[in-house]
């Protein structure tokens, strides 16, 4: 057959695949294959289309056949895609390796083979192929691919653990480049860079210094960063050289914090050697920079840093520089008008004596010239005032305030906001953040303190009102949005949270780093239509990134950016080990089961399509990573609390603890998912209790034996995990400050009767399957557990209009949603039991009868099919009652009425809101979504949405288990 004809025929298949129209691709390729059934590219394309249509088994058959001898480029390429999607990367190596053997020296094939080895981290094979390539086409890049592959063997491969081997490999890599240098064959910057790296890996620092002077280096790597030299000086402890270099660099750019660090480091190391004259040299140098420079922060901060280090080294900084407090105050006087001043000073407040801190804060406030009767007159004064307030919070001045004082502070801040916004920020661009906003942000923190003191959710609603007012004026202020998001979740208002989240436009890698702020709370929301798209988006990001990230490795080789290779590998691992990723994968599957809304058969089919593999928990718990951006929300919480304990240490502790608890939560949820899936799988297997005679004769039963064991392991591990968690006594992390991480969901889950329900359900299913009459006991246990839930639901007090503590609504709502989840999962499992044992009764009773009777003879503890049916019906009946009860209890979730509209609330603060003014949209298409969530009604709307979805869900379950 003429090649070009085939090519033309396949064109439309390729096009359809490119467009993602896999159905069409399949149809087209079938047509082609009718004419030329052995066309390999066609077969490969068919396999690819099948994979993308979810028909992997069919496609695997084709691929396995093709694997034997694909040889043309396009077939190989299409197969590469197939293997990538099937996650069988090693097969790509196989096919290219076979192809390359047939055409030795084919550059394209060898390149593909090299990249195939890159994808599976097979550094040794990479090296071999790269050398083959170099032999075929003596180009520098191939030579360096080989060298890099050797370096990776030394640093990351199996040999990296063996110091000697690793040493030998590195020195080999070095010699390979030495050779090129000698022959004057170096061609590119990246090559030089790699050489320097190899020297560094071998700790040949002197050699690096020498090499930096050579012509090769200066010619090919003129942009070699000075940081290389600096690091080497540090490694070699060449403090004098470092000091001189840093000094030189600082004279050129006196605002470089990194150079100051290096400078001070070298000075203090020299001082340690006994050279005390350095103190004065250092101080004079910094003082000169201060004198010379106009208003750069660098030298001033360096002076503070020097003070700190002197004190750490038990030298007497006061006699040299005077009082620390004065230095800080000086800094504030000069830079207080900069937004970052507070962040700068924050680093140094710790060194201020405890008893001086609050006094210092008052001094700053005084210095701004603003008091209870005066207002900022210009933007500089405004920013200074704000800074002093933030510092006063940092110094702990707000810790001990009474309720009245906090209230007064809040009012003052809101009024300051109102005044400053009208005075200074009226002409704000919609893309800018107003300076005056900082008052409002601080006010939100203060109000949270107050809410905690009074344990009243009402105060948080007020905060939301005010932040919402701010966002009307200043729609770009993401700090305010983040606080709203946090408060909505604290108050259990998923709809409000969702609206704010939308406005933040979180995407791509942010789905991981910021997922903890919203997505991770969604399993508690009860609004599945909100959470599902976000789960989907999140999972799509991770799976796509995982696949793509292989290509970045290939790219690094292509561009010779060897310095980035290891970083890319680490990054790839960090993404794929993200705790958030695993958590959402599990939650999405649980949600899918909970939301199954067809009849039994449809549900079971959909469940099978989910392809849950209960027997193995593929999550590598020890390798999970914490990718949260925990500093995205600003805070000025006191450095020390009332007991003079470091709040930062506590915050760090909370961060660590929350990660640990969420990891436990993940285990629990994954275990639950696997137990439910295993139960359903078990139900659909042939009966388990077959007497030993049949066992011996029937080979199939051995596999059932295995199933039996596996199921027991899953059930046991669920039971163990639960009892371990009950004993482990995890505490809810502190919610003392507004932007503390919210307590882990773990606490809701462990105090709900998941353990009891699913342990007894798991055992029930097992004994049904074994036809063991112990099933009776477990049927009773399930019913008991249901009664527990029933009591909880009945005892649930309607929210009503009583004052409400901060987390109360969230707690109640979350528990409720947990109950519904439990019932939904039970409905699914029990509907399968019913179909299997009750529906089959009529058909199978005759065929089973023999076995049943023979069993009865052997063993009096067996259960007849009929008895099974009765037990299942009993449990289902109880579940039905429970579901109906839950539905009737939904009204109890009706939230408190929000008394005031925004305007009424603002009026209570003596703010007369401007007419909903149009923010200054620049002539731009960057749309800054204006946010206007009506706090007055949002809680009610959120409730209605929750009720709507939950009651629909409950109705579906009732329908599903509606049996007589």
């Amino acid at each position: 057959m003429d090649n070009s004809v085939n090519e033309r025929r396949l064109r439309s298949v390729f096009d359809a695949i490119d467009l993602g129209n896999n159905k069409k691709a399949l149809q087209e390729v079938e047509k082609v294959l009718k004419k030329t059934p052995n066309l390999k590219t066609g077969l490969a394309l068919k396999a690819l289309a099948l994979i993308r249509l979810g028909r992997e088994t069919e496609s695997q058959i084709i691929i396995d056949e093709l694997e034997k001898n694909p040889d043309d480029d396009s077939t190989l390429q299409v197969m590469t895609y197939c293997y990538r999607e099937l996650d069988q990367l090693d097969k790509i190596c196989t096919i290219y390796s076979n192809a390359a053997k047939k055409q030795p020296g084919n550059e394209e094939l060898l390149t593909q083979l090299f990249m195939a080895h890159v994808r599976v981290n097979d550094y040794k094979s990479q090296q071999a192929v790269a050398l083959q390539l170099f032999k075929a086409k003596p180009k520098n890049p191939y030579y360096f691919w080989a060298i890099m592959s050797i370096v990776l063997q030394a640093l990351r491969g199996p040999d990296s653990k063996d110091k000697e081997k690793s040493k030998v490999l590195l020195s080999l890599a070095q010699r390979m480049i030495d050779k090129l240098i000698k022959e004057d064959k170096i061609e590119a910057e990246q090559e030089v860079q790699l050489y320097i790296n190899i020297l560094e890996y071998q700790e040949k620092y002197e050699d690096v210094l020498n090499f930096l002077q050579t012509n090769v280096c200066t010619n090919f790597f003129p942009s070699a960063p000075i940081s290389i030299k600096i690091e080497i000086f540090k490694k070699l402890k060449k403090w004098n050289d470092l000091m001189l270099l840093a000094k030189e660099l600082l004279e050129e750019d006196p605002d470089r914090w990194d150079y100051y660090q290096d400078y001070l480091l070298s000075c203090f190391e020299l001082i340690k050697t006994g050279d005390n004259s350095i103190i004065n040299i250092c101080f004079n140098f910094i003082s000169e920079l201060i004198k010379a420079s106009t208003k750069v922060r660098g030298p001033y901060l360096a002076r503070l840093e020097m003070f700190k280090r002197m004190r750490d080294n038990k030298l007497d900084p006061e006699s040299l520089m005077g009082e620390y407090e004065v230095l800080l105050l000086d800094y504030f006087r000069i830079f207080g008008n900069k937004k970052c001043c507070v962040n700068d000073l924050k680093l140094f407040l710790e060194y201020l004596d405890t008893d001086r801190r609050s006094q210092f804060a008052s001094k700053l406030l005084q210095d701004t010239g603003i008091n209870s009767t005066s207002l900022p007159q210009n933007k500089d004064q405004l920013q200074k005032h704000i800074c002093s307030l933030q510092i006063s919070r940092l110094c702990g001045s707000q810790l001990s305030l009474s309720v009245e004082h906090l209230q007064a502070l809040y009012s003052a801040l809101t009024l300051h906001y109102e005044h400053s916004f009208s005075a200074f920020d009226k002409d704000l661009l919609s893309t800018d953040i107003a300076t005056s906003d900082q008052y409002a942000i601080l006010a939100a923190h203060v109000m949270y303190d107050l809410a905690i003191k009074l344990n009243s959710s009402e105060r948080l609603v007020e905060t939301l009102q005010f932040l919402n007012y701010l966002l009307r004026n200043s729609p770009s202020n993401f700090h305010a949005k983040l606080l709203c998001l946090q408060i909505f979740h604290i108050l259990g208002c998923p709809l409000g949270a969702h609206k704010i989240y939308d406005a933040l436009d979180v995407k791509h890698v942010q789905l991981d780093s910021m997922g903890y702020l919203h997505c991770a709370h969604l399993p508690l929301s009860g609004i599945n239509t909100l959470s599902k798209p976000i789960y989907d988006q999140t999972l799509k990001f991770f799976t796509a990134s995982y696949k793509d990230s292989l290509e970045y490795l290939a790219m690094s080789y292509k561009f010779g950016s060897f310095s980035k290779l290891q970083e890319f590998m680490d990054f790839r691992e960090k993404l794929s080990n993200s705790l958030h990723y695993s958590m959402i994968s599990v939650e999405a599957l649980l949600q899918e089961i909970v939301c199954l809304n067809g009849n039994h058969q449809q549900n079971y089919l959909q469940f099978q399509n989910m392809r849950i593999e209960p027997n193995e928990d593929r999550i590598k718990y020890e390798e999970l990573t914490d990718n949260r951006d925990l500093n995205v929300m600003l805070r000025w919480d006191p450095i020390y609390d009332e007991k003079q304990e470091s709040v930062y240490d506590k915050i760090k502790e909370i961060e660590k603890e929350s990660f640990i608890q969420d990891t436990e939560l993940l285990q629990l949820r994954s275990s639950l998912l696997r137990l439910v899936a295993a139960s359903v799988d078990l139900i659909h297997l042939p009966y388990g209790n077959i007497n030993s005679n049949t066992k011996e004769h029937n080979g199939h039963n051995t596999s059932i034996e295995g199933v039996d064991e596996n199921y027991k392991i899953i059930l046991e591990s669920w039971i163990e995990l639960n009892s371990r968690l009950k004993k482990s006594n995890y505490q809810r992390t502190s919610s003392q400050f507004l932007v503390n991480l919210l307590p882990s969901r773990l606490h809701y889950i462990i105090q709900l009767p998941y353990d009891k329900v699913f342990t007894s359900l798991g055992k029930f299913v097992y004994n049904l399957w074994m036809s063991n009459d112990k099933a009776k006991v477990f049927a009773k246990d399930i019913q008991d557990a249901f009664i527990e839930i029933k009591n909880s639901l009945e005892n649930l007090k309607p929210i009503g209009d009583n004052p409400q503590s901060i987390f109360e609504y969230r707690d109640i709502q979350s528990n409720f949603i947990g109950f519904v989840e439990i019932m939904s999962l039970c409905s699914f499992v029990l509907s399968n039991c019913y179909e299997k044992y009750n529906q089959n009764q009529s058909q199978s009773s005759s065929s089973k009868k023999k076995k049943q009777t023979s069993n009865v003879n052997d063993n009096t503890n067996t259960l007849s099919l009929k008895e099974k049916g009765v037990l299942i019906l009993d449990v289902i009946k109880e579940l039905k009652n429970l579901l109906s009860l839950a539905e009737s209890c939904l009204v109890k979730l009706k939230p408190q009425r929000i008394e005031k509209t925004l305007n009424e609330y603002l009026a209570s603060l003596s703010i007369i809101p401007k007419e909903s003014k149009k923010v200054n949209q620049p002539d731009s298409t960057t749309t800054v979504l204006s946010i206007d969530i009506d706090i007055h009604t949002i809680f009610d709307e959120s409730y209605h949405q929750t009720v709507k979805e939950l009651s629909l869900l409950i109705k579906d379950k009732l329908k599903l288990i509606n049996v007589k």
Partner: protein
Amino acid sequence: MTSLRPFVCNDMFKFNGVNLDPLTETYGLSFYMQYLAHWPEYFQVAVAPSGEIMGYIMGKAEGHGENWHGHVTALSVSPDYRRLGLAATLMKFLEDVSEKKRCFFVDLFVRVSNQIAINMYKLLGYIVYRTVLEYYSGDENAYDMRKALKRDVDKKSMIPLSNPVRPEDID
């Protein structure tokens, strides 16, 4: 008060304080990765003494002959660290790298509505070389702004074009 260092992958987990700004786009991973793989020396981040990311610049070198130039793909400074000369520092860094690579000029695209940035670039010596029509999503036009480097002795790269071009016609 800045530390400059090369941008690394892990910075992507922490750059939200910069990227939540409405004029700063968060791109798909592959976009950043491509720059990191291809032009790692052009991707720098400015870090505060506290370790917080204050801003970053991402760029590349491309073009042939007298069109060999540095390009600023993204420049952004966190709202909390603006007006400290940081953008100027980052731009200077990119210009220095481009000088060392013997580029003829540096160029960049900016929304015509982004007055703050346009003024800043002008202060830094850039001129509007030409208008690119409907360059941005939402059909907003872009200015292609340029500044000649030492190698372009006669500043040939900075002679503005009088007619706007379409995005598909930019080389």
